[in-house]
């Protein structure tokens, strides 16, 4: 029996072509990945400028009346950033160094936004309508995902409500300070409403009860986007 012909060259060609296709795909994927990170950084810069500008505006108007400073002074981009960051985290994984840096920066922006909001509320003698939420990506928080759904739903119903969410274990000293000021125990999910901490899963109804002012917001139209993290 004569040995059969082998198409060795064609094996090599097809292998090389496949490698080229894969390499091109990796390149395209990385290219768009970088573009997305850039976009997130741009949004962060925009928020940081927004906050700085609001703070400056606030300082300038320190002596003036409340009506010059509405909730519109708060950055509208926080919700957009939140969504994109969550999406990026699901694409690149929570352990991606880029994702981690972006999350740290995001946490700082949230705290600054929170402080500014408190100042405005104080000035205008209004109860600040905000929720601080601590979650964990670790497996020791089985209810965090559910709580995330609740808070997302809540902010969709009340666009004026500002929800600040923080990874309890994030390596940002300002977040650690926030935790110690509010004496938040490591029992997650944890929610702080008007300086009172609540632990464990809280439904939409529970949160509405804890923050009755929400009812007045129900039909108020607003351009301010707020955000929730799981």
């Amino acid at each position: 029996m004569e040995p059969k012909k082998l198409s060795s060259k064609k094996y090599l060609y097809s292998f090389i072509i496949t490698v080229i296709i894969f390499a091109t795909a990796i390149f395209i994927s990385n290219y768009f990945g970088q573009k997305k990170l850039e976009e997130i950084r741009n949004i962060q810069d925009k928020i940081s400028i927004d906050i700085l500008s609001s703070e400056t505006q606030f300082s300038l108007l320190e002596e003036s009346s409340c009506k010059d400073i509405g909730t519109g002074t708060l950055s509208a981009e926080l919700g957009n950033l939140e969504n994109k960051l969550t999406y990026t985290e699901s694409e690149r994984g929570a352990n991606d160094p880029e994702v981690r840096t972006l999350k740290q920066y995001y946490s700082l922006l949230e705290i600054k936004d929170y402080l500014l909001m408190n100042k405005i509320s104080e000035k205008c003698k209004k109860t600040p309508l905000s929720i601080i939420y601590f979650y964990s990506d670790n497996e020791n928080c089985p209810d965090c995902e559910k709580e995330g759904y609740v808070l997302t739903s809540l902010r969709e119903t009340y666009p004026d409500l500002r929800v600040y969410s923080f990874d309890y274990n994030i390596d940002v000293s300002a977040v650690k300070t926030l935790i110690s000021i509010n004496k938040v125990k490591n029992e997650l999910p944890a929610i702080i409403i008007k300086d009172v901490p609540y632990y464990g899963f809280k439904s939409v109804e529970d949160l509405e009860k804890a923050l009755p002012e929400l009812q007045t917001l129900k039909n108020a139209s607003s351009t301010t986007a707020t955000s929730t993290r799981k």
Partner: protein
Amino acid sequence: MPDITNIITYIFLFASLNFEVFLLIIYFENRLDIKDEGRRMMLGVKKYPSVTIIVPCWNEETTVSKTIHSLLSLDYPKNKLKILIVDDGSTDKTWNNIQKFKNNPQIEMYSKENGGKYTALNFGLEKLSTDLVGCLDSDSYVDKDALKYIVTYFQDKEIMAVAPSVKLWKPSGPLQMMQKVEYSFGIFTRKMFHYLQAVYITPGPFSIFRKKVFEQLGGYKHAHNTEDIEIALRMQKNGYKIAHAHNAMVYTVAPRKVRKLLKQRVRWSYGFIKNAQDYKELFFKKEYGNLGLFILPMASISIISVLSITTISIFNIMRALFNMYERVRAVGFSFHLPQWSMDWFYINTELIAIIGIVATLGTLSMILISKKMSEKKLDIGMDLIYFLLLYMFIAPVWIGKSVYNALTGTKSSWR
């Protein structure tokens, strides 16, 4: 960060993309020769070899006459074509129905005790007096030019068997339309295997052999109910060349119901697995050429890859459903439209998505080439849509079942 399921998926995607590229290279290299087949047939052959077609039948009262009529209308010298009907102990009116052909000089008919298709074929082989022999299942019909196309290949003395292109008889309805695409795809791959000397199935309907094949290698075997895979592998093992005549069309009636289709396919896949096991010495051996080094291993890998990719997909779908359930449980049904749906940011640009798109495009182009080869026209019809919608859900079922049967030793039955 790619997790373990992603890595498995990448490996299989790389393997299947590599295979697609390989087949496309073979196609582009031989596309002129593929076109040339028609011209060679027109030139005709110097001397028509004598041919016997065995028609094994078992309870095929409704289709057997039509099968025989299609053989009688073959464009081939009448004195060179013999039809040998073997009734394998039918219990219906098959034997009565074929009596009307009794006086036709081209036709011989025999009745024997039921013993399975391969015994009917061997029974016919014993009565053989012609150079070439083939078989036609009694639920299949031949195109009138089929035999002429096939015999042109036998002008090459080394060609020991020629496989035809199998198409569906008047397909209708989603399930048959899906199979129509699958069969044309089969014509494409088989033709590429032809160029690689790696045809490993000589399909039951109308594969034609030299008489020598059975004289030297023996008759058909039970071969896990897929004697058409076994004989091809046996020939390959002994270095016999098998060709594929892509213009020689044979039509077969496809299952119309999912249950019947699954049964047929479990038998085929199970037959492939078991025969591949029986001929495992062909794998990874240089002397068996492309078949041993690439085609058989690739066919086996594709079984594993279909199963693992399906498992991963089912797992992902379950996870998504569970998340949805958790969400509904936490907040009830909510109908807020996501505000970001139009943003390019949310287009999936992960590597796996891009490679998936490329692999799908490769498959689509092969399907279109197949359609052009088998139907002589390039069109995108409902059949393609049914194929894309249904095949990936149905095929894993029969592949999974046949692997399960092979592992547990459950035998698959004929019908």
